[in-house]
Structures are given as structure tokens and as C-alpha cells.
């Protein structure tokens, strides 16, 4: 049973990583679909909690897979999910990195780069949609989301401050 769960975690995240065009934030909806809708590993709310923990932790945002893996299968799950999410694409990065210079001005390379930008932007917007759906259950938390978006857009505020204020608002029972 245990090995089956680990195998599922590893294969699912390895496959997901290969489609993570635009990085970890673009892959959030698919992680949510896997963890909440398909495998019922966790609730919507727990997924949003893990997103929050990953955001306040130092390091790359992809570290949310470590939390999901731990939740599903303990430390072994954390290791399996993290390796699966980073391993295949790292091998690819290593191999492509050696020949990349050669294609600096290749037409196909420019086309792929330009073409994928709007796709990954759409995916990142979908991530915001999915997390907002799991988080913003009332108009107060929606207001916090909106206020943070405006603040982050117009100022260069350190995100940790917005987390501190929003966490305190949550603690106070306003949200």
C-alpha cells in the first residue's frame, strides 16, 4: 500500500513537472486537481494551507510539493514528490544547457519562447483562480487579496509584510 502511494506520487509529479510550462506557479491548478479532485489526498482548504506555508517558507515555490508529499506519505512521500518534481526537468536542463548557445538565434527557439509566454500567463492566472477559490470564502478575504494585489503592483513592498498583516487579520477573526 505504502509503496503504491509513493509510486503514484512519484509518477504523477514527474509527469506534471514535464508540463510545468512557466514554472511552479503555473502548475498549481494541476497539483490541486491531482491532490484534491482525483486522489482525494486533502481538502480544498488543506491545499490552500499548504500553498500559504510554501509561500512563507524560504526557497523556491515548488517546495509546495514537499508539503503535499509529506501529507500523503510522510518523509518518504516528501522525498519522492520533491525528487519527482525536480529530477526529470533537471536532467533535461543539464542536457539542453550544453547545446543551448548554438540555437541562440534559431527561429524555432524564438517561436517557442514567444508562443509559450501567453500560455504560462494563462496558467498562472488559473493558479490564482484555484487558490482564491479555496481561500476567499467571504468578502473580507477577497478584499485582502485585492488589497495585496494593488499594493504589490504599485509598490515594491516586501511580501513578508503583507503575509504578516494578512495573517494577523486572520488571527483576529476578521477573515
Amino acid at each position, binding site marked *: 500500500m505504502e509503496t503504491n502511494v509513493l509510486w503514484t506520487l512519484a509518477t504523477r509529479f514527474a509527469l506534471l513537472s514535464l508540463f510545468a510550462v512557466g514554472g511552479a506557479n503555473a502548475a498549481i491548478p494541476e497539483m490541486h486537481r491531482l491532490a484534491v479532485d482525483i486522489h482525494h489526498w486533502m481538502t480544498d*482548504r488543506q491545499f490552500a494551507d499548504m500553498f500559504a*506555508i*510554501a509561500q512563507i517558507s*524560504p*526557497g523556491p515555490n515548488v517546495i509546495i510539493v*514537499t*508539503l503535499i508529499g509529506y501529507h500523503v506519505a510522510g518523509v518518504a512521500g516528501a522525498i519522492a514528490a520533491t525528487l519527482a518534481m525536480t529530477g526529470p526537468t533537471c536532467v533535461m536542463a543539464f542536457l539542453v544547457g550544453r547545446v543551448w548557445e548554438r540555437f541562440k538565434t534559431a527561429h524555432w527557439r524564438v517561436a517557442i519562447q514567444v*508562443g509559450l509566454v501567453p500560455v504560462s500567463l494563462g496558467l498562472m492566472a488559473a493558479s490564482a483562480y484555484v487558490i482564491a477559490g479555496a481561500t476567499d470564502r467571504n468578502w473580507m478575504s477577497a478584499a*485582502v487579496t485585492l488589497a495585496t494585489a494593488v499594493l504589490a503592483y504599485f509598490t515594491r513592498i516586501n511580501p513578508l509584510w503583507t503575509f504578516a498583516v494578512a495573517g494577523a487579520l486572520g488571527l483576529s477573526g476578521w477573515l
Partner: protein
Amino acid sequence: MEEESPAPKSPSLFELFLAFSACSLSGFGGVLPWARRMIVERKHWMTADEFNEAFSLSQFLPGPNIVNFSVVFGARFGGVAGAVVALLGLMGPPFVIVTILAVFYAQAGNDAVLGRILAGISAAAVGLLIAVVVKMCIPVFRRGLHWAPLIGILAFVGVGPMHLPLQWVLLVLAPIAIAIAWVRP
């Protein structure tokens, strides 16, 4: 303008590990700015252009960008060993921290107070993500890529409200988007 960089220095494996752990541990809400500061401005391991070039490759490939970048950067200075060491530096320390947080969450996750705090943080984190997406959209509009908004909206609707598998959406949309970019650069 970036100042002329002094003679390029090659980091040792240990320096690679330390540099990437330091960036990773400073990187709240994104490691990239720290990595750039470290590599281009402080250590002069790469020029600004070299950095952009290496990072564009990391964005080009699937997977977490900064993770790809650590491999590309590490490989350039230390081959396979360099790539592994940079990756370990980037992922090792946050892995340990987050696993500890996961243990704590497994025990206290049902606690109502913790739940309220995390709900607040999550609401703010979504706001930050929205701001990033909007900022990234602006240069796309400036470049006059008129087809881009339609592709972006289709990706959003498919993966967001429609809950379609990411693979399907990408296998349909990516070739179309790349084909359009090919014909109308």
C-alpha cells in the same frame, strides 16, 4: 549600465553550494532576485547578459525555473558535480525547513487559530500572484501580440474554471501558440 566585470572567477563546488543555499534561504516570495544579485553583482560569476541568457533557457524548459537555473549554472562551472551541488544547495535547506513545518502542520492543521492565520496568508499570497501576472502581461501587450490575450484566456479558462488536465490544455494550445509565433514573430 552594469559596470565592467573584473576577470571572471570560477566558483568551487563548495562555493556553489553555499551561494545557492544562501539565495534559497533569503528567497521569500522568489529566489531569482537573490540569485541575480549574488551571481552578477556580488560574485561576478556571470555578466548581466550571460545571466539573462542562462535564465531564458531555464524559463524555456518545463519545470521550476530557478531549479532549472541552478542546474544550468552549476553545470557550466562544474559539470555534473556542479549541477548536483547547486541543486542540493537550492533545494536542501528549504526541504529540511518545509518538512519540519509539514510535521507541525500534520499535528496542528485542524487547529482553528492556525487555520485562520493560514487563510489570511493564503489570501495575501493570491494577491501577490495576481500582481505578478498583471506585471508580466504588460510587456506582452506592449509588443503588440494581438493573439496572445486569446491564448492566455483559453489556457486560463481550460485549466482554471473548466478543471481540464494540464496535459490536454498544453498539448492543444502550445502547438497553436508556437505556430502563430512562428508565422507572425
